């Protein structure tokens, strides 16, 4: 299965289509071949029946007047040929037919089981495939049985008719199938791309490209569950930009947007791959630092604070902002994410009131 997963999706789709098409074509060809062979046998039975019925009539008219059994034997001897052996047949007897290559025990049940139409049928034994025809005579219930070794050249003729008539439509069908699979593959790819885009838009902020509030809520729920199971701590930090409104008001909204984009870039560059940053809205960001305790996180948060409070160059205009960061720790401050967010918020407002910086949540009792 691993090997199959390594094959590109498009190739897998085409292979699947071609294999199923080839199976379908093979089954259809086998059915057509069998039907053609049966049709040949039916034609042969009808021909034999017609020819021998005429002969029987003529011989009977020209005077075979013995007892029924003798007459049948005489008829069979007169009609007998090496290619078409004619045998007297009685429904109550089992007749053995034998020649150089084949020996058949002609029981009435065998004939009935292999009957194709009321006139006769085909006995298909391993090396002895023969058509047979039962011919009625006027001598009681007994009749004559004509056997004919089925002509193998007829089968070759069917194959030759195949190559003449079926080859091009088959190739055409496979060609169409390959195209259908390519078209389907393309449609699936386009749908997948659209789905990815829609999912991305639903979970990311269009201005900064950072995950949005919905993404953050999903991520923190998952992280809380994981940390519960693994007894692993994590840090939640709320960041609010100070003096952002001043930049927006003094330089305009387009510069405010540029500033938010640059803040997002700096945050992304400072953090580890598995940390999560999201923009909750306006100038508010949130960080999730999995597997980090308060001491280790302080080093990181200081670096983040220093990075985002460095001056910005927005289209040749300088901008200066500060930041307030509120921190809460799982599981020390709370085990539910709503409370963790609330406590980080409280810490952030405390930091904001003191003019910026980093504040860790402290409860009213401990403060």
């Amino acid at each position, binding site marked *: 299965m691993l090997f199959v997963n390594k094959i590109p999706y498009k190739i897998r789709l085409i292979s699947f289509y071609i294999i199923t098409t080839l199976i379908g074509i093979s089954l259809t060809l086998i059915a057509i071949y069998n039907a053609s062979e049966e049709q040949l046998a039916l034609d042969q039975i009808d021909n034999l029946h017609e020819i021998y019925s005429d002969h029987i009539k003529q011989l009977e008219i020209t005077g075979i007047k013995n007892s029924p059994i003798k007459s049948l034997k005489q008829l069979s001897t007169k009609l007998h040929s090496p290619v078409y052996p004619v045998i007297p047949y009685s429904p109550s007897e089992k007749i053995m037919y034998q020649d150089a290559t084949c020996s058949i025990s002609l029981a009435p049940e065998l004939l009935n089981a292999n009957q194709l139409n009321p006139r006769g049928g085909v006995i298909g034994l391993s090396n002895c495939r023969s058509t047979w025809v039962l011919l009625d005579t006027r001598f009681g219930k007994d009749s004559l049985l004509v056997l004919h070794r089925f002509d193998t050249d007829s089968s070759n003729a069917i194959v030759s008719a195949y190559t*003449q*008539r079926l*080859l*091009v*439509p088959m190739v*055409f069908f496979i*060609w169409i199938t390959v195209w259908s699979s*390519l*078209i389907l593959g*393309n449609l699936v790819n386009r749908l997948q791309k659209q789905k990815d885009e829609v999912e991305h838009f639903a979970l990311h902020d269009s201005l900064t490209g950072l995950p949005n509030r919905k993404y953050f809520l999903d991520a923190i729920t998952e992280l809380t569950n994981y940390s519960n199971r693994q007894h692993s701590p994590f840090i939640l930090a709320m960041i609010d930009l100070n003096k952002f409104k001043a930049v927006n008001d003094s330089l305009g909204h387009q510069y405010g947007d540029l500033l938010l984009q640059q803040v997002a870039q700096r945050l992304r560059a400072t953090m580890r791959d598995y940390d999560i940053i999201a923009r909750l809205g306006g100038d508010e960001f949130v960080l999730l630092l999995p597997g980090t305790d308060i001491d280790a996180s302080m080093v990181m948060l200081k670096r983040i604070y220093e990075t985002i409070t460095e001056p910005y160059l927005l289209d040749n205009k300088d901008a200066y902002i500060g930041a307030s960061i509120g921190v809460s720790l799982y599981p020390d401050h709370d085990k539910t994410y709503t409370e963790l967010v609330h406590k980080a918020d409280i810490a952030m407002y405390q930091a904001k009131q003191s003019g910026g910086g980093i504040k860790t949540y402290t409860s009213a009792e401990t403060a």
Partner: protein
Amino acid sequence: MKLHRNMGLYDQIFRTIMGLALIYLGPVSDVLTSDTLSESLLAGVGIMIIISSLIGWCPLYHIAGFNSHRRKQS
């Protein structure tokens, strides 16, 4: 509907040759087959290929998202 060219020059040449070959193998000669259905299919596909190569746009390429036409770098 504006048809955007999606076929390169080599593709067009190849298709024209293929189209003529299919028409020759189909209704013109009995080399491959003398079956009417087969000949009509070969002729149909041959004509489609030639027309698509003349206008430089292939509907199947279009639906399947292929393009053998390299746009010139401006």
